């Protein structure tokens, strides 16, 4: 009886361990967004002030409200990606959340009193938290009675802003097909190639980790700088060691390093933390913040820009 009980408990523990080990990575979220170029060409823009300078940004809400073809294309892409197991984050719903947050943002001010200024895409990325932005543009070409579509679909990694997939081309000329049919054909003609490249990007994520960026800065109030020694080693070197120990295959590059700042690029962070839970840039960088506090008694503030760039400011929180 004791033997049976021990076997049963052993089997149960093994099941639990296996389930923990098989934790899955966070599924990237994808959102289709019309490109700035398309919005400008079609007149869907608005202006905003960026620290005294007037900038033009896409007006996604106006575009969705007034352009049926845009809704058709986004709907078609959404449908095809859902079939592949990747339902997309809805642009319209994300814009609605953005509006709700806008009132709160109006009250936000920096220590100097200036307002927070972000572009439309940055705001959208922050709210939607999409890992991949599928940037969409097309142009109708006409030669006499014949029409064709030049179509661009780019997959941009929201962490690094790097292009990770694309589907680009001009479809055949057609004298009788309507614009919606031409657009639908264009989506179908490019989506498989796009997904093949996206698959390659996901394979790279699993093999080599997610690519992010890390910046180290210091407050003026910090007593010392990155050359200050702890346990006989400079703080900058200790930080570099931590990054090397906590990246996949130790992959990162130190783009710049002085006594007051460090910039790390092409940092490959694991998809899971040491407890097997899916993680992201912020959680990963918190590890460095905690190490600085626990080991060297240094307070540090962690800020994020988008999903893929962490900044740790040493000295105080």
């Amino acid at each position, binding site marked *: 009886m004791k033997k049976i009980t021990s076997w049963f408990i052993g089997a149960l523990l093994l099941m639990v361990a296996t389930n923990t080990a098989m934790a*899955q990575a966070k599924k990237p979220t994808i959102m289709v967004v019309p490109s700035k170029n398309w919005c400008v060409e079609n007149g869907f823009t608005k202006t905003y002030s960026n620290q005294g300078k007037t900038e033009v940004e896409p007006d996604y809400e106006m575009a969705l409200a007034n352009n049926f073809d845009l809704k058709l294309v986004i709907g078609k892409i959404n449908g095809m990606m859902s079939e*592949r197991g990747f339902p997309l984050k809805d642009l319209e719903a994300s814009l609605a959340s953005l509006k709700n947050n806008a009132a709160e943002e109006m009250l936000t001010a920096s220590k100097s009193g200036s307002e927070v200024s972000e572009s439309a895409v940055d705001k959208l990325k922050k709210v939607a938290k999409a890992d991949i932005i599928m940037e969409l543009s097309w142009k109708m070409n006409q030669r006499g009675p014949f029409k064709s579509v030049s179509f661009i679909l780019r997959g941009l990694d929201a962490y690094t802003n790097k292009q990770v997939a694309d589907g680009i081309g001009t479809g055949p000329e057609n004298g009788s097909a309507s614009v919606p049919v031409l657009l639908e*054909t264009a989506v*179908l003609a490019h989506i498989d190639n796009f*997904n093949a490249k996206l698959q390659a990007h996901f394979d790279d994520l699993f093999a080599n980790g997610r690519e992010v960026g890390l910046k180290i800065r210091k407050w003026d109030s910090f007593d010392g700088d990155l050359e200050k020694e702890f346990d006989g080693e400079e703080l900058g070197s200790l930080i570099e060691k931590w990054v090397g120990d906590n990246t996949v295959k130790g992959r990162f590059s130190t783009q710049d390093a002085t006594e007051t700042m460090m910039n790390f690029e092409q940092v490959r962070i694991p998809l899971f933390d040491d407890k097997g839970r899916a993680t992201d840039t912020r959680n990963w960088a918190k590890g460095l913040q905690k190490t600085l506090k626990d080991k060297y008694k240094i307070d540090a503030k962690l800020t994020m820009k988008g999903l893929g760039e962490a900044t740790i400011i040493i000295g105080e929180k």
Partner: protein
Amino acid sequence: MSKIKGIVVLLMLSVLSFNANAQNTATDFSSMNYEVQFIRTGLDGTILFKIYSYGKDDDQAIANAKSDALKAVMFRGIPGSDLVGPMVTDLAALETHKDFFQTFFGTQQYLQYVSISGDGSVDGDDRFKVGKRFKVGVVVSVQKGNLRKLLEGAGIIRSLNSGF
């Protein structure tokens, strides 16, 4: 003695013939004895292209065109189309999933995923005699969407959301 020699020769011939009939799955399914010309992507998850296949006569060449069309989509890709690369990128799958492919092509299950476009007749310009064989060009429609789902379900290719 001559009887024993005869039996040995017969045995050797039988062994050779067994080896000749035993198909090397990798060679058979990944052979590129056909040519493809992309036409267009269909609106309903299909792809349309012209395939030139070989056979001892027209009928056999047309029959081979259907299986060759699926092999082209799965193992080679269709240049100039949205399926530039093959669906099955790891050719080791041909051995690890040998049973699947033998069933798929052997029991004519593949016919669900391919059809000859038009009335099946072959244009005179698309018929050639090459040595002792005939080469025939026909337009085929392959249901790439359904084929992909089948291969993903069988674990031969990874789906886009696998691992997440």
